[in-house]
């Protein structure tokens, strides 16, 4: 199975643990990633300013993949959303496609309909499958209690993703965590937004949005919160100390990317999964699994 890995802007710099874990897990499961160096920003940050320019940037990325006849695998949910949206709009609207292609022609690119875009979690769930993963599990993570944060752009709007999930009651990530043997702990308001999109606009509001989730998750004394998007992770991990200071609370809640969890279950060395780069040290969790060096 082969995909072009679309990293976006944030992961290669601020989510290297996510990238390392993804690459190692993929290799273990027989997924091949091509690194297309021509993938730029996905276009998401420009959407608020000018939708057409955002679409153009996204279309160029899709053209880069189409030139190589590649399917795209994304790690960031915002990239997934903007690339999927662009693909849909350009596939269904010939006039818009012609307009965009006129601009792309000036740089020698052409958008062609039919590029497949999938978040890595969906690749695991739909293309690899739970049974295949189950047969590869070497370490049962039964000692772990984990809560899941879906984030928004993996699920919503449902129509964008052809209703592959029930956005009000999703289960793919629960199933992917459960296959490792870990216990999934549900909590109040699981589907709430992390607030990441507001971090640069109204920082205090973003922190206020992230706080209730940290309260609800830690109330259940779980070992970690599991995420699949770098912005969600930035809110709950990178900003956890800030939230603690602002509200005079103490969480010390490790935040893991899903491929890090799966990687442990697949028996991959924790260094190759980037655990040393997690900011809230997951030592207690690794001790529980008797994996501390």
């Amino acid at each position, binding site marked *: 199975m082969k995909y072009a890995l679309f990293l976006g802007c944030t992961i290669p710099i601020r989510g290297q643990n996510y*990238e390392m874990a993804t690459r190692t897990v993929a290799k273990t499961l027989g997924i091949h990633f091509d690194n297309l160096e021509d993938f730029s920003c996905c276009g998401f940050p420009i959407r608020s300013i*000018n939708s057409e320019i955002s679409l153009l940037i996204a279309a160029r990325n899709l053209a880069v993949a189409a030139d190589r006849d590649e399917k795209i695998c994304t790690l960031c949910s915002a990239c997934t959303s903007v690339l999927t949206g662009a693909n849909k709009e350009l596939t269904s609207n010939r006039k818009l496609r012609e307009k965009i292609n006129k601009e792309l022609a000036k740089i020698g690119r052409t958008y062609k309909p039919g590029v497949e875009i999938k978040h890595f979690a969906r690749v695991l769930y739909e293309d690899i499958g739970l049974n295949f993963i189950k047969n590869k599990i070497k370490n049962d993570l039964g000692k772990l209690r984990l809560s899941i944060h879906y984030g928004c752009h993996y699920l919503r709007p449902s129509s964008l993703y052809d209703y592959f999930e029930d956005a009000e009651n999703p289960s793919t990530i629960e199933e992917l965590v459960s296959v490792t043997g870990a216990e999934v702990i549900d909590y109040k308001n699981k589907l709430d937004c992390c607030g990441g999109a507001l971090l640069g606009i109204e920082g205090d509001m973003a922190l206020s949005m992230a706080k209730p989730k940290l309260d609800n998750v830690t109330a259940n004394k779980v070992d970690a919160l599991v995420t699949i998007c770098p912005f969600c992770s930035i809110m709950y991990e990178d900003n956890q100390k800030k939230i603690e200071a602002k509200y005079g609370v103490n969480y010390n809640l490790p935040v893991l990317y899903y491929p890090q969890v799966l990687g442990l279950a697949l028996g991959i060395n924790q260094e190759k999964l980037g655990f040393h780069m997690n900011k809230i040290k997951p030592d207690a969790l690794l001790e529980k699994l008797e994996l501390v060096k």
Partner: protein
Amino acid sequence: MIDSKELDHNFKYEVAAETGGINITKCFACGTCTASCPVREIDETYNPRKIIRMILLGMRDRVLKSDFIWLCSTCCTCDDRCPQNVELTKIMMALKNIAVKEGYIHPFFRGQARIISTFGRLNIIEDFDNKKREKLGLPPIKKIFEEVKKLLKNMRIKEKI
């Protein structure tokens, strides 16, 4: 107080003509969006139903000059729950796009647009970053995307921001 002289009755059509704005007139003001909104939960100045009413009434200046149009977190919860399929997240994008044309632009987005029009990506890549990546066994990341720079230059992005 709303002064009818301040109202621009064409505003809703202006929003409808913008990318993603087409469904604005379908709203029947049920308030599901406001009840579902995680931003509204934190700050009452952001009220989706009220924003739609303001658009439909034609309160063009007040909406475009407001700080609240920049506060949508794009969580899309309202999009999924709206019984009329108004697609509010897209409406908010349309509003911001119009505001930018009128010269109102949040400095955060202006900053991001400037970085992207210079480098073709956010999070500027230095030699240090690629050395660190190499140590971690990760492939290098391109620093500048000339194609994206050219696309954005052709679209006159600098004049827009």
